[in-house]
């Protein structure tokens, strides 16, 4: 999963220091993927080295440094939203995190993220199916591996359909608005409450 991009996404809301970032990450992903503060600071220093974040002013009374996004960091984040999660990395986790963050942040086109991902996964599923069609039933182990990938893709697409339906149900006017440019933050706070309550 991408800690790097998750931190960039959180910093999009404004400057934060390490412990705050960790707290926000866990709150928004339901504590499903615990982070330790060490991971957060290691990632932050790498992001700073790469010019994607920068210190936001002097340390506070307790010596904590808040970080903020640079222009390059914003561009990196935009790219993350627009590119589907690859199959080769632990995909389910990064996708769930990406959508958990997307529904809690203003100005993110969730419907577009869902569609981009669905198309990529559907393409992968089609290619697997094509491969499976050529299987002659002689290599059971191979076919079982293929089928496990088919089931994983199918499950992901069903979940994406579900995400889309839930967003549409939440508030149809907002689902429409999010398709265009920036959603008013009041509207998206509604989504966030509905997601983080439960």
């Amino acid at each position, binding site marked *: 999963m991408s800690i790097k991009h998750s931190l960039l996404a959180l910093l999009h809301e404004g400057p934060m220091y390490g412990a705050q970032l960790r707290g926000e990450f866990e709150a928004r992903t339901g504590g499903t993927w615990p982070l330790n503060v060490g991971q957060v600071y290691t990632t932050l220093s790498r992001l700073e080295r790469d010019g994607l974040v920068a210190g936001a002013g002097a340390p506070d009374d307790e010596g904590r440094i808040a970080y903020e996004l640079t222009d390059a960091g914003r561009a990196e984040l935009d790219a993350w939203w627009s590119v589907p999660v690859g199959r080769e990395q632990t995909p389910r986790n990064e996708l769930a995190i990406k959508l958990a963050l997307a529904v809690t942040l203003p100005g993110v086109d969730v419907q577009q993220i869902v569609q981009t991902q669905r198309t990529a996964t559907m393409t992968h599923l*089609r290619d697997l199916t094509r491969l499976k069609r050529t299987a002659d039933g002689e290599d059971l182990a191979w076919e079982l591996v293929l089928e496990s990938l088919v089931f994983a893709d199918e499950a992901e697409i069903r979940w994406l359909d579900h995400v889309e339906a839930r967003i549409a149900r939440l508030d149809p006017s907002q689902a429409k608005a999010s398709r265009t440019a920036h959603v008013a933050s009041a509207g998206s706070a509604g989504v966030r409450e509905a997601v983080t309550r439960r």
Partner: protein
Amino acid sequence: MSTTTHPALLLDGVERTHGTGPTAVHALRGVSLAVEPGELVAVMGPSGSGKSTLLNVAGALDAPTGGRVLIDGQELSALGRKQLDRLRRRTMGFVFQDLNLIPSLTALENVSLPLELDGVALRTARAAARAALDKVRIPELADRFPEQLSGGQQQRAAIARALVGDRSLVLADEPTGALDSTTGEAVLRTLRQQCDDGAAGLLVTHESRHAAWADRVIFLRDGVVVDSTGDAATPESLLDRVV
């Protein structure tokens, strides 16, 4: 593309509005799509997104309120009712969720009927019907009546009827709706085979594992094509990711 070959099916900026005034429903809002011979295209989208309307317009069962529909390069709006009927009977095969098998005819007679209506000699029609039942792997059920067939067997007979006599355009709306997954897969295999043999196919389905049999999947939302899958990956690149 050469000027002498046409897509089997071409939709060009197709619109379909039901009703008028404030209660009008814009089921299709400018859909363009080409399906080539040998190609199977799947249509996915939420309920109410216009999938069935798209299929009905493509099959000349419903007329667009805007844009053009061409079958084999023939613009449908230029055809009279008789010519349309003929085109539907000769060129197109339909598979719908409700099978519409005629209860008083055997499976073989049901499959043979479209050809007989078209003036094909009885012997020839029946032979083609047997071949079609063979293709869907129920040749032994030729003489049974629909009520003597299971749901899956009826569905296969309906598909045989849609494919009989080398239809060059096959249109299927949720054809695997009521079937168990093994039978559903057999249906897809048959459709796929028909397209590999040169037919063009348009398949509406909400199941990704079925859409995955298509060469291309298009996504409809609110009567608009919002996305479509790209070209196929090479087997090598897929294997890379698996191993």
